[in-house]
């Protein structure tokens, strides 16, 4: 490796022997997979045998910060965690904003590959290139805010220390337990539980080392120009002012806001849980590292939930504890959001599981003994908030719901699987695909399960231009593919998806910034090709784990129950037609298997040989 070439420095951590070593990832890999999500998928694919139990020591836990993080580029705070999910059994990549990713890079390390299981609870303290394994028994049982503060105090109280930790939910085995840093969550899919299974309570980082940029002058010029231009972009200004919750009103008006566990697409109580009510409770705006938009909202609940103050809620959380549970009390949503952060749990899966349980209760599928003292009906917000606690503590019915809706439905029986709103085991979020057919494809084909972020189609969900008919199935394969590939490279770089989606940056500008960082020309086409490569590699990982095209599906409710009212009235998801179009757009065969030709085009032939039976291709 030439000394002047751009590279990443990765820390390999062996929790069994409590040892670590550095290694470098060279430019050729970075140009092929960029970093973050892409590099994480490659490392996991290469180093992890198929069939590993997600809660075994053999399941790797990988933290990666993409190449834009910490450079001063605007809107690049998002580090990722890559592992095999204990909720779905698929590849899992989850992102979080905040400040942890940049601070990790300031230690001199661009990522951590964590192996094994410590023989006692530990936390890692990484600072200015040094790594310490510190005892963590005293952190057990602490809520995540207390855990972070205790660690900072243990380490001398420096407020610059960033901590990513688990909470009681992970320690108790909640399958969708998250990793929390500040108030930001590596939310979906149970990365927190993987961390708990390794006896790793937290990772603390601090440092001042600069992040490498091969061509700093043109980089600074361009990113300064981007920041200046962005000040005049009205979309970004609106987004910064209200954040994601504003879109509840739009999505609801479009009739695709899942209500009462996807029994309807419009929530009659939307005004009471909208961004307007949130603004009435605003304490101050918050932001992530290097972001001038500051879309976060620190809000305080009113009685009877006045003890709760939260950074958020965001759109998905508003939905999960609002329309999805039939709840019109915004203060209860703030409380539920905060409790999820404190326990360390994904808000989408938590709220979704509760909404599912509400429908089960109303259908008489629970016994009195199972319900205990809770009247878990739609709209009963005290019961909803209490259930968040019980899931976090795995108490009573919470113990069942902590397994996720797929496993819960398998135990409950009585046709509950029909309305367990999950794909591959991950609960589906806040867009009803009966009203947005490209989103149906993203949910069905997302490598980590029912996820919107892997390929959000703003044109369908929010009515962004250019116009698209959300109910049509024509040409949706190409639409979904474009959004998925775009999100893949955005994630790999470490960017937040929202500013590029709101006129903050052009793809050519993103490519140029990356070129200046690595010192090698990189075009917009290269970005999309890399995004496509990442998507295909994640699919190969899943296929090697035994998934097939048959797992590209949706809950029966969405396939068979027509939307009862609203702009999408009468609609179901015509998944067969959509998938056929999508597989063709992807260059896969009719079973959804990447062809040899496609893999050759992407430079993934070896991965294809490892994952696929070539007769199929």
């Amino acid at each position, binding site marked *: 490796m030439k000394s002047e070439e751009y590279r990443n420095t990765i820390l390999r951590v062996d929790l069994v022997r409590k040892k670590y070593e550095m290694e470098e990832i060279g430019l050729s890999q970075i140009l092929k997979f960029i970093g973050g999500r892409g590099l994480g998928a490659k490392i996991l694919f290469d180093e992890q045998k198929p069939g590993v139990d997600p809660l075994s020591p053999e399941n790797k836990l990988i933290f990666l910060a993409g190449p834009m993080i910490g450079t001063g580029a605007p809107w690049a705070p998002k580090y990722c965690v890559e592992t095999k999910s204990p909720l779905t059994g698929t590849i899992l990549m989850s992102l979080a904003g905040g400040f942890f990713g940049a601070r990790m890079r300031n230690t001199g390390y661009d990522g951590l590959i964590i192996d094994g299981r410590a023989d006692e609870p530990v936390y890692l303290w990484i600072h200015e290139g040094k790594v310490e394994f510190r005892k963590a028994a005293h952190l057990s049982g602490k809520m995540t805010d207390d855990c972070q503060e205790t660690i900072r105090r243990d380490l001398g109280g420096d407020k610059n220390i960033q901590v990513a930790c688990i909470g009681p939910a992970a320690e108790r085995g909640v399958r969708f337990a998250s990793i929390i840093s500040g108030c930001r969550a590596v939310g979906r899919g149970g990365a927190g539980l993987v961390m708990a299974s390794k006896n790793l309570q937290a990772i603390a980082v601090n440092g001042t080392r600069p992040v490498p940029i091969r061509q700093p002058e043109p980089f600074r010029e361009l990113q300064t120009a981007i920041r200046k231009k962005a000040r005049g972009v009205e979309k970004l200004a609106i987004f910064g002012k209200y954040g994601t919750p504003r879109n509840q009103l739009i999505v609801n*008006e479009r009739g695709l806001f899942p209500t009462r566990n996807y029994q309807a697409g419009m929530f009659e109580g939307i005004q009471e849980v909208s961004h307007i009510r949130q603004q009435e409770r605003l304490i101050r705006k918050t932001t992530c590292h290097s972001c001038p938009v500051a879309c976060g909202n620190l809000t305080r609940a009113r009685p009877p939930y006045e003890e709760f103050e939260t950074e958020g809620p965001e759109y998905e959380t508003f939905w999960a504890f609002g329309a999805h549970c039939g709840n019109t009390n915004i203060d209860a949503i703030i409380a539920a959001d905060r409790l999820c952060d404190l326990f360390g749990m994904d808000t989408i899966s938590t709220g979704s599981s509760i909404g599912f349980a509400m429908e089960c209760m109303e259908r008489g599928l629970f016994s009195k003994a199972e319900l205990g003292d809770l009247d878990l009906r739609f709209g009963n917000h005290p019961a909803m908030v209490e259930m968040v606690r019980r899931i976090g503590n795995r108490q009573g019915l919470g113990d069942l719901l902590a397994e996720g809706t797929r496993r819960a439905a398998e135990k409950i029986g009585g046709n509950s699987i029909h309305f367990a709103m999950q794909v591959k085991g991950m609960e589906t979020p806040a867009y009803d695909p009966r009203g947005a057919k490209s989103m149906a494809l993203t949910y069905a084909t997302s490598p980590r399960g029912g996820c919107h972020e892997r390929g959000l189609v*703003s044109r369908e969900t*929010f009515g962004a231009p250019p116009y698209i008919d959300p109910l049509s199935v024509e040409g949706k394969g190409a639409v979904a593919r474009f959004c998925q590939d775009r999100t893949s490279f955005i994630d790999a770089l470490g960017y937040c998806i929202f500013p590029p989606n709101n006129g903050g940056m052009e793809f050519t500008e993103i490519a140029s910034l990356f070129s200046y960082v690595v010192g090698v020309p990189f075009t917009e086409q290269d970005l999309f090709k890399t995004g496509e490569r990442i998507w295909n590699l994640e699919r190969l990982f899943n296929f090697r784990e035994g998934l097939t095209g048959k797992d590209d599906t949706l809950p029966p409710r969405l396939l068979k129950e027509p939307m009862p009212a609203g702009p999408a009235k009468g609609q179901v998801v015509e998944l067969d037609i959509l998938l056929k179009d999508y597989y063709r757009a992807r260059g896969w065969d009719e079973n959804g298997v990447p062809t040899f030709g496609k893999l050759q085009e992407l430079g993934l032939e070896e991965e294809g040989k490892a994952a696929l039976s070539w007769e199929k291709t």
Partner: protein
Amino acid sequence: MGKNVKILVQFLGPDNRGGGYLAEEKEVPAGMAVGEVVDFLGQKYGETSGEMQGFSTAHKTGEAYRVMLNGRSLEQDQEMNFKVQNGDRITIFFPIGGG
């Protein structure tokens, strides 16, 4: 005097007041096209209503705002094809991505 119809107009714009959201029932002449209603509102309220400020100009340039009729998006060239009826909902909004 021609018959009027009552419609609900929702406006989601950039302004500070009320979360940038305005919702009012309006009476408009029967047979008005959606596009005509939007122009009518822009002229009547666009420069005086905090929530709708600047809407009139911005909509004419076609750059920023979008229109939904009963939750269905309309392209600008479709706005003249649909006549409003009693009980219709017209939503004029500034789309942003995020959620």
